């Protein structure tokens, strides 16, 4: 994303800059600046809503307004939340090939249970075959301090194991999010899907765009190679991928596309490729 790449990328994509995986990231805070301002906190004292739950009381009020038919209030709250979150992205979609590059850069890598899925579906993920979330960076060495957050335990993985594990979830149809959780640091790499994942949900259901930012890419179907087999269909979480029946080909709406690459990894003919978002004038500012 532009701002992140400008300030942290060192001339390249921000999450591919090795500096951003160092211990320094955990100590970085502008002088005199306190913890990031939140729009209200959870009403339940001691509740375990972490950064993953995002909206807090602001979103609850917005949803309550929308459910009672008061769209004006809903829009006001969402606009205000977006305004405050402009400089604090929550997560960014990352395609599989860049996930592998990230895994080569960042250490340690630890698989764990997903806090979103625990909240929305009460899933008790407690072994490597069930874990869908991944902690990345030196912060993971202190995981035992928060047994609530890591209630299913944590399994530290080698880079090779981590790649196999991520690839497994990619095959199953989960997209990958690099979690920033509102700060300039890399906290984890999650395997996410709708509706379990709170950032995806907040973005596509309620328009909180800063909680999930699109990837650096846009997917593109080469119709010379696409034979309309349909293997990619059903993998898109964002309603971007359709089947164009009259042309007998897959079709991607590039404004809807988040560039997560799930369709690309499913294509047996390499008909789908990544275009650099920043180099397409009409999409360069569509995040």
């Amino acid at each position, binding site marked *: 994303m532009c701002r992140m790449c400008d300030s942290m990328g060192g001339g390249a994509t921000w999450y591919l800059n090795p500096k951003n995986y160092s211990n320094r990231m955990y100590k970085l805070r502008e002088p005199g600046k306190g913890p990031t301002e939140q729009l209200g906190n959870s009403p339940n004292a001691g509740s375990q809503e972490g950064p993953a739950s995002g909206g807090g009381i602001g979103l609850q009020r917005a949803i309550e307004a929308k459910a009672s038919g008061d769209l004006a209030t809903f829009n006001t709250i969402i606009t205000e939340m977006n305004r405050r979150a402009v400089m604090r992205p929550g997560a960014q979609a990352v395609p599989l090939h860049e996930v592998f590059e990230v895994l080569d850069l960042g250490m340690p890598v630890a698989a764990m249970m997903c806090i979103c899925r625990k909240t929305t579906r*009460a899933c008790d993920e407690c072994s490597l075959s069930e874990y869908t979330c991944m902690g990345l960076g030196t912060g993971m060495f202190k995981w035992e301090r928060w*047994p*609530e957050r890591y209630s299913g335990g944590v399994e530290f993985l080698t880079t090779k194991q981590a790649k196999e594990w991520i690839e497994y979830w990619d095959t199953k149809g989960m997209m990958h999010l690099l979690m920033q959780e509102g700060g300039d640091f890399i906290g984890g790499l999650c395997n996410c899907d709708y509706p379990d994942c709170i950032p995806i949900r907040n973005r596509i259901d309620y328009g909180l765009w800063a909680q999930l930012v699109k990837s650096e890419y846009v997917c593109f179907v080469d119709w010379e190679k696409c034979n309309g087999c349909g293997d990619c269909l059903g993998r898109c979480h964002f309603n971007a991928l359709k089947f164009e029946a009259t042309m007998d080909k897959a079709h991607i709406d590039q404004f809807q596309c988040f560039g997560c690459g799930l369709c690309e990894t499913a294509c047996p003919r390499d008909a789908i490729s990544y275009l650099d978002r920043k180099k397409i004038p009409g999409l360069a500012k569509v995040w």
Partner: protein
Amino acid sequence: MYPVIAPVIKINNERCTTPFACKACLQICPTAVFSVHGLKMVRLEETDKTEPGNYRLRVAYRDKCTACNRCVDVCPTDALTVSMPEGETV
């Protein structure tokens, strides 16, 4: 987007005491309306999911409720009621 009045979901927290251990409504809801939150937090200790009152069920995304009543049917403690707000006709 046009205004749609969503159904009202009432949770009786005296009946629904261990939502995390039960998870029936959480996993059956087609639009994933519910969420579950821990109320008890003891440092360096994992919260017991089977102890009554440690977790609380909450309606997080009421605007997504379709009043299909699957959660009401599946609830083992009859703690849920789903209805359209007063004055709303179907």
